[in-house]
């Protein structure tokens, strides 16, 4: 036995942990990390990334480069889902209302950090590297990358805090579009850098053509797949099937984008835009379905992002460039988005708080840095990769928190609540009618009828002398008694009442109450204390109305913001 156990234990090492186990570990650890950070009022996404850092390259190395490489398709899939869901937010009405603001702010918040980072790195790099060509080439490339914002963390914060309003809409629009701008600026920057360093691989026109292919191809793939999915969803109503088609579409878009070497985020986003803007109401249902499917995918995605970050090779010079890059990016985003907001006459909350929502960088930035390293091997490439990795490390930790602060200050948190959220957050006491008319069991039929005529309730709890619940009288019970008025005092509430099949308590989560109502097809449920005293009643018809009016109230509040 001990020999057997010894053999088993000696065969186990961190390197031998299989991918499924690591995925489980990442998902578990990430979720716990998210919860811990949530308790500290820091967005959960930071917790996921922090756990990734802990188990990854910069931490305990439980997840190594090979594993991360093996899981790369999974990351693409997560990015595809993020793009698809971002597209789902861009309805025609949103584009019509905020379109001008999107474009103006996008240009300012993208180009300003580009210019500032280029100049800052160019000037300071000239002193550090003693090579102005290298410094300005690096500046241009870093500047282009600085214009990109990470859509993944931003949308994750928006999702976690259920935000709704002009700042949320503009943020989604900007993060959806600024990758495209970053690509164009990168083409321009790499051409100039190529001329400066003498490493011309492609002409500017060729590169522009290439970028046009990437953007155009992405849009085309997105339009075609979105259109096909739109046609499919109109034919089916079964939720499981709709979800399978949607996930299938995201996988197809992702796979096609990789094969065709186009922008998968843009392609998936376009598919989402096409679907949400179809006339069918199923588009919305479909996005709700996919949203329910995404949480574990996102947790894993962010844990893997954290695991991938390796800043162990940071030198003094690189550290200085990291500082300069951060100052340039953050000030550029701040100045650019503020002026973009003023020029496009965006609401005050957008002008004031948008910059704080744009600090995160990740996938696109890292991708472009790797591309740049291929174009410019040597000092420029190496410095670029290490600077972007280090700054991604920092912005991924501070970006989501800043984004949360911005959305909170703009009063948009909690305004995008769905029926499920209200149910999840409420208790029975929050939705019960505490002013329910009570009927004593010894009240006569005329007294009961008079009580019914005074209020519009459908259910009346019957109580004993000590206010304890005995039963309930419904409209159905009383209907037959209307024609038997001659019975007068012969019939009491006691004779009319029905037994209560189910009760609930004030602190019971509304989710459990709703589940009991649905399972037993209840029309009402009395809320009682531990000693069975009636505290209120929840009528199913009123519950639905109450939830809907709460949602409408929050939406109205969001619409009033701008």
């Amino acid at each position: 036995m001990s020999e057997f156990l010894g053999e088993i234990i000696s065969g186990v090492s961190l390197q031998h942990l299989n991918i499924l186990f690591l995925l489980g570990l990442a998902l578990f650890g990430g979720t716990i990390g998210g919860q811990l950070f949530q308790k500290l009022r820091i967005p959960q996404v930071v917790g996921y990334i922090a756990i990734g850092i802990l188990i990854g390259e910069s931490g305990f190395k439980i997840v190594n480069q090979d594993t991360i490489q093996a899981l790369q398709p999974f990351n693409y899939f997560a990015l595809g889902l993020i793009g698809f869901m971002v597209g789902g937010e861009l309805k025609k009405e949103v584009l019509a209302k905020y379109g001008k603001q999107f474009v103006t702010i996008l240009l300012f918040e993208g180009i300003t950090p580009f210019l500032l980072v280029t100049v800052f790195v160019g000037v300071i790099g000239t002193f550090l590297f003693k090579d102005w060509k290298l410094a300005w080439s690096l500046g241009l490339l870093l500047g282009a990358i600085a214009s990109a914002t990470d859509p993944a963390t931003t949308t994750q914060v928006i999702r976690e805090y259920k935000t709704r309003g002009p700042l949320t809409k503009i943020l989604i629009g900007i993060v959806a579009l600024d990758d495209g701008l970053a690509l164009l600026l990168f083409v321009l920057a790499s051409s100039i850098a190529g001329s400066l360093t003498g490493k011309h691989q492609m002409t500017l026109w060729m590169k522009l053509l290439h970028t046009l292919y990437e953007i155009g191809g992405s849009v085309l793939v997105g339009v075609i797949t979105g259109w096909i999915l739109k046609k499919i969803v109109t034919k089916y109503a079964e939720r499981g099937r709709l979800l399978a088609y949607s996930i299938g579409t995201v996988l197809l878009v992702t796979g096609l984008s990789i094969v065709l070497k186009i922008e998968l985020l843009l392609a998936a986003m376009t598919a989402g835009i096409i679907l949400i803007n179809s006339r069918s109401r199923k588009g919305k249902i479909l996005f709700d379905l996919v949203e329910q499917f995404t949480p574990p995918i996102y947790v894993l995605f962010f844990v893997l992002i954290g695991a991938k970050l390796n800043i162990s090779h940071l030198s003094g010079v690189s550290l200085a460039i990291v500082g300069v890059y951060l100052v340039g990016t953050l000030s550029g985003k701040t100045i650019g988005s503020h002026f973009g907001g003023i020029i496009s006459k965006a609401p005050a909350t957008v002008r004031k708080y948008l910059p704080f929502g744009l600090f995160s960088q990740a996938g696109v930035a890292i991708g472009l840095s790797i591309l740049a390293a291929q174009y410019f091997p040597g000092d420029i490439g190496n410095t670029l990769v290490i600077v972007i990795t280090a700054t991604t490390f920092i912005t991924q930790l501070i970006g989501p928190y800043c984004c949360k602060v911005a959305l909170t200050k703009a009063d948009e948190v909690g305004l995008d609540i769905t029926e499920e959220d209200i149910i999840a957050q409420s208790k029975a006491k929050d939705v019960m009618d505490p002013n329910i008319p009570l009927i004593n069991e010894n009240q006569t039929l005329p007294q009961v009828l008079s009580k019914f005529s005074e209020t519009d309730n459908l259910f009346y709890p019957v109580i004993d002398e000590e206010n304890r619940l005995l039963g309930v009288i419904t409209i159905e019970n009383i209907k037959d008694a209307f024609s038997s008025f001659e019975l007068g005092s012969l019939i009491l509430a006691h004779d009319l009442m029905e037994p209560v099949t189910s009760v609930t308590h004030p602190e019971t989560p509304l989710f459990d109450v709703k589940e009991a109502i649905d399972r037993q097809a209840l029309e009402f449920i009395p809320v009682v204390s531990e000693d069975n005293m009636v505290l209120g009643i929840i009528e199913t018809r009123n519950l639905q109305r109450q939830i809907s009016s709460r949602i409408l109230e929050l939406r109205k509040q969001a619409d009033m913001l701008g």
Partner: protein
Amino acid sequence: MEIKDSLNRKCVCFLTRNTKTEAISQLVDLLKTCGKIDDVESIKEKLLYREKLMSTGIGLGLGIPHIRTEMVTEPVMAVGICKEGISDYDSIDNKPVWVVLLIIAGKDQHRQYIKLMSQAVTLLKEPGMIETLKNSTTSEEIYKIFAG
């Protein structure tokens, strides 16, 4: 649902006791003898609890004790005539009760329950009806009045 559907001719009697509790008890026992109910004690308890809430003596010498319970599946009735009159019935007119009509309906037989009570009250409030019942000499005579 008519009274005759719920009243068995064997469930009609002349009451030998003249207190409310004993009169109700005798009628419940009679229903048990007729095989209409099983748990006699529980039904008595429920009927007396109901009387405690408010007396079913509705005046004119008439008492209609009644309950709904899961212990029966069909409405059942029993009639008792007390020649001496039950003076502790606590009727709304403070007069003795001569005719006691016991009604037990199933828990979900709301409509039949109300209908039976309504029919009984209409019948018994006919002028001279209580006198006729008081002067009856056989249970068959009483049964025929109720069964129509």
